[in-house]
């Protein structure tokens, strides 16, 4: 129809040019180009009706999966690192310890090199989505276009700020440091914006709201404020810090393994410690944020919640438990190794608590990994008296899992406190009272978490979810927020009995740091698959159905193989980026390294001894270790 209209239009136009001097040529060219013009119109009409395009061999979905995962992981790193780089810089500024400033700069160096690659993968992802999912992208563009503009502006601001922040590092020292810190604040502010705007697009797909009439901005804003937007924002913000911390830890771990000199070993041992500390620090509240997200998912659509927790994705959470369990074990193991190797003589005195903690962690992991229903033959089921094992079946429910996850967080937190206190003797007059109070709080808190967990079996689910689980979380948080300042106060005046030694960690410490990073990357990949699969056969849940040949969610084994591939590719990519970023270091190794080697040995002023990894001796300004 359109092409016929075009021909008619051209015919009506022809007599007008008859009188011009170029009329003959014009008619000739028009007639010559007419078929191409008409075909182009047809092609355009056809292109508008294309819903999907495919890529041979690998498939469009798999390709998008790989690229999106790489982009997301890189973005997580790029958005997480500025948070703690900035905090490190502030710590260095306030404490006047140059090693923190150096560390912050080293983190930022990794950030700048990863930033361009993140943007590159973002661009590739965008082109792939437009080309392979034109109908979905047209719908999303229609809804979210104003937010696209906002995103572009934020991206420009973020890039400009990052350039000034990085290249102005040395220039903005001394009395201009405040300005540099402010730039770091802006960097994080824009990074937050860059994260939450695309989050709204993804969360709208999972939990869309109905859009009424209104301006484009009103519609976009309504769509952005969907029920899972903020739970995902908070969860990702914390997870990015965890990812960034553990990746920096892994970087330090590998550099520690490759270190040729004592100075290098000292520096990367310390950096690995800080990376692990940041990862653990973020990891402790992460399950609470995840719990909030799942609650919102259930509230939004119970069916979606059931698909996740009790449907075909139920076994995914057993894998998640395994990964989180290994991560907790890895992080604790690293702390325990720190006590044994960095604080000589401490291994013996902490042997029993470490063993007790290990047993608690292993038991908790066992409970967390116990599935609700077992795959059993008919004969086995008859022997068990059903699909639920009479004893193990008790551990398969949420009440047990909430309890053990809280206990694991508590144990990890206590590992950190133990590390903090190792090799020091409290001198404060109120130390005994404080320690007694902390001991009592820990015992009561631990018992209360278990009691609430057991009680949870005997109350309706809604009571358990709304009150008991929340109470368990609050108890653990209360212990964390009381213990941290109390220990900080105790350590401020504590006497160091054993000097801390850096660079003495065994080789397996480097591997433990790498393992932690791999676990976090796998976890992010796994939960990305869970979030995407919870939409089942919808591009936008309940609004736009996936009618492509890839509308199904693959089984866990296939998905896990893909996650492993993605994790491996990401590790290679990050290794390459870091290798490129540190190539220049070899050239200026001499003076830089000399400085770096000297710095970790200086611990002064008692500021943030936890991050520094030790406390000063009373009356000593500088401590050689």
């Amino acid at each position, binding site marked *: 129809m359109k092409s016929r209209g075009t021909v008619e239009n051209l015919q009506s136009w022809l007599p007008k040019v008859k009188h011009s001097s170029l009329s003959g040529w014009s008619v000739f060219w028009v007639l010559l180009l007419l078929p191409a013009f008409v075909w182009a119109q047809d092609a355009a009409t056809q292109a508008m009706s294309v819903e999907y395009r495919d890529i041979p061999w690998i498939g469009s979905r798999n390709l998008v999966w790989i690229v999106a995962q790489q982009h997301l992981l890189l973005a997580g790193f790029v958005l997480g690192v500025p948070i703690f780089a900035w905090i490190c810089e502030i710590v260095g500024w306030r404490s006047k310890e140059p090693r923190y400033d150096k560390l912050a700069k080293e983190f930022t160096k990794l950030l700048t090199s990863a930033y361009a690659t993140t943007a590159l993968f973002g661009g590739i992802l965008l082109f792939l989505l437009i080309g392979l999912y034109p109908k979905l992208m047209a*719908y999303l563009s229609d809804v979210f276009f104003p937010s696209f503009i906002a995103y572009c502006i934020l991206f420009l601001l973020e890039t400009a700020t990052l350039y000034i922040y990085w290249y102005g590092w040395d220039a903005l020292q001394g009395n201009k440091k405040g300005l540099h810190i402010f730039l770091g604040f802006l960097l994080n502010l824009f990074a937050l914006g860059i994260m939450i705007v695309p989050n709204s697009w993804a969360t709208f797909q999972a939990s*869309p*709201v*109905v*859009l*009424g*009439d*209104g301006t484009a901005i009103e519609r976009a804003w*309504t769509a952005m404020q969907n*029920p899972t937007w903020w739970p995902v924002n908070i969860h990702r913000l914390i997870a990015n810090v965890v990812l960034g911390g553990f990746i920096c830890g892994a970087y330090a771990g*590998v550099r520690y*393994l*490759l270190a040729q000199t004592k100075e290098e070993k000292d520096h990367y041992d310390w950096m690995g410690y800080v990376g692990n500390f940041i990862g653990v620090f973020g990891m402790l509240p992460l399950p609470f944020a995840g719990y909030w997200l799942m609650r919102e998912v259930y*509230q*939004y659509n119970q*069916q979606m919640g*059931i*698909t996740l927790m009790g*449907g*075909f994705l139920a*076994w995914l959470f*057993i*894998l998640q438990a*395994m*990964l989180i369990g290994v991560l907790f074990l890895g992080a604790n193991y690293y702390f325990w190794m720190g006590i044994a190797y960095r604080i000589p003589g401490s291994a013996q005195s902490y042997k029993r608590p470490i063993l007790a903690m290990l047993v608690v962690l292993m038991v908790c992991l066992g409970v967390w990994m116990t599935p609700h229903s077992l*795959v059993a033959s008919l004969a086995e089921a008859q022997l068990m008296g059903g699909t639920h094992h009479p004893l193990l079946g008790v551990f398969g429910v949420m009440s047990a899992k909430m309890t053990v996850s809280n206990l694991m967080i508590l144990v990890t937190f206590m590992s950190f406190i133990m590390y903090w206190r190792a090799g020091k003797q409290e001198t404060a007059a109120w130390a005994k009272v404080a320690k007694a109070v902390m001991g009592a709080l820990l015992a009561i808190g631990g018992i209360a978490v278990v009691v609430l967990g057991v009680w949870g079996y005997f109350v309706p689910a809604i009571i358990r979810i709304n009150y008991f689980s929340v109470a368990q979380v609050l108890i653990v948080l209360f212990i964390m927020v009381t213990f941290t300042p109390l220990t900080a106060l105790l350590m401020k005046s504590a006497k160091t009995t054993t000097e801390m030694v850096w660079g003495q960690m065994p080789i397996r410490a*480097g*591997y433990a740091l*790498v*393992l932690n990073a*791999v676990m976090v990357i*796998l976890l992010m990949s796994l939960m990305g698959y869970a979030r995407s*699969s919870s939409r*089942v*056969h*919808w591009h936008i*849940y*309940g*609004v736009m*159905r*996936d*009618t492509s040949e890839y*509308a*199904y*969610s*693959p*089984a*866990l*084994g*296939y*998905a*896990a*193989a893909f*996650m*492993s591939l993605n*994790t*491996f590719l990401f*590790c290679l990519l990050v290794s390459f980026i870091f290798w490129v970023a540190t190539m220049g270091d070899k050239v200026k190794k001499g003076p830089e390294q000399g400085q770096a080697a000297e710095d970790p040995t200086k611990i002064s002023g008692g500021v943030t001894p936890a991050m520094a990894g030790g406390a000063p001796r009373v009356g000593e300004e500088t401590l050689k270790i």
Partner: protein
Amino acid sequence: MSEVALLQLIGLIVVGLGVFILLFIKGKFLRVVGFVIIVLGGFSLIALSVPQMASLPPAIETFDITKVKTADDLASIGQKIFFSKGQCALCHSIGPSESSRCPDLNGIGAKLAPEFIYESLTQPQAYIYLDFRHGGVPEEYPARMPYINKNPIALSEQEIYSVIAFLQKMSGEPISIKVEDVLRESGGGEMKVASVAVHGTSSTND
């Protein structure tokens, strides 16, 4: 060889390669790579050992409107539209719900005339609708009612009538929508409605 068996074989080869690197290669970085691929291969093998369930999409149901004989048939189609293409259940609940963002539609077919329901669906801003279910000043609902007969939902006339028939039936009311009227509106033809089952089906993938 099944897909799972093939992936298990690949997983074993990957783990074997990692073990080989750790046993025979001295390069420190390569040894870290070997360690990482053992972890990744091990993870894949564990994931392949749990029940393998894929989530398959439900079939798209097609209703031939000319085959609708009774008002109950119409209400049955309306129910499916309510929970799928119409997106009504995204905001409305049938019965009290903490999470619903718009009025509870329980018994709405008995409370409102079909003409009023039709007008509410096609001209949602014609009347002020506020939430009076609490003390104090009435508030606007968090979500605004969209035009159901316009994009993106864009229900046809006969689909809207089917939903009204469902709302009446669900409220215990006699269905006042006449099948003949709906047929006349459509002139015969097909309505495509995605299945009501939003959770999909699962199948073992072994």
